[in-house]
């Protein structure tokens, strides 16, 4: 299951979809909205996705993970729209016969998703807003 959704993520459904009777481990990553960024209070985040391509890219990531680790099941749900601090932005679950493979695969999937999936977020502060990783002036500060 790969889902891009404007509704709150059903974490249990993600876990159930990934689960398998042959698994000795189900590894779950839950990404949440942090309440601060650059030392400032975050009021909320605006997420947007190029949905068709995001699904296609996540599918490629799953294929790569399946080639590297003996996965028995997997599921990913990514939220879009307006999210407040504490809300779940992404949930990833993978099952495997043994825990080490499940940990490694889950980490690979979230790390690669953050690099490749066409999903964006804008932080809204009390005194302004900023596209995460993409603000031209901030990029100069970090480079």
């Amino acid at each position, binding site marked *: 299951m790969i889902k891009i959704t404007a509704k709150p993520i059903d974490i249990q459904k993600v876990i159930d979809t990934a689960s398998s009777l042959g698994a000795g481990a189900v590894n779950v990553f839950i990404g949440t909205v942090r309440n601060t960024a650059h030392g400032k209070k975050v009021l909320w985040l605006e997420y947007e996705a190029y949905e068709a391509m995001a699904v296609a890219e996540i599918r490629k990531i799953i294929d790569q993970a399946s080639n590297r680790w003996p996965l028995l099941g997997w599921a990913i749900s990514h939220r879009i729209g307006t999210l407040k601090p504490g809300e779940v932005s992404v949930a990833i679950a993978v099952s495997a016969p043994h825990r080490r493979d499940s940990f490694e695969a889950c980490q690979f999937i979230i790390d690669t998703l953050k690099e490749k999936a066409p999903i*964006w977020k804008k932080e809204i502060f009390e005194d302004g807003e900023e596209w995460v990783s*993409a603000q*031209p002036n901030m990029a100069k500060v970090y480079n």
Partner: protein
Amino acid sequence: MKCMVKAFGITREIAGAKEVVVELPEGSTVSDFKTELFSQFPRLSALTSLFIAVNQAYAEDHQVLKPEDEIALIPPVAGG
């Protein structure tokens, strides 16, 4: 040819629309497209990176564009 281009995130705000039109000669590549795009929207060239997606996949600079291609601007991503 007339390319309809989807713009997301900061590129959507810079372009001021979810979709923009870029006119290109037949046989143009992704690299030619970016040159034309930057002349139309100079602020886009200030981004740390800008990938172009063709038919919902990351495209290489030398890829030749066809009129029916689905083209999209992919500024630095920040999922998760």
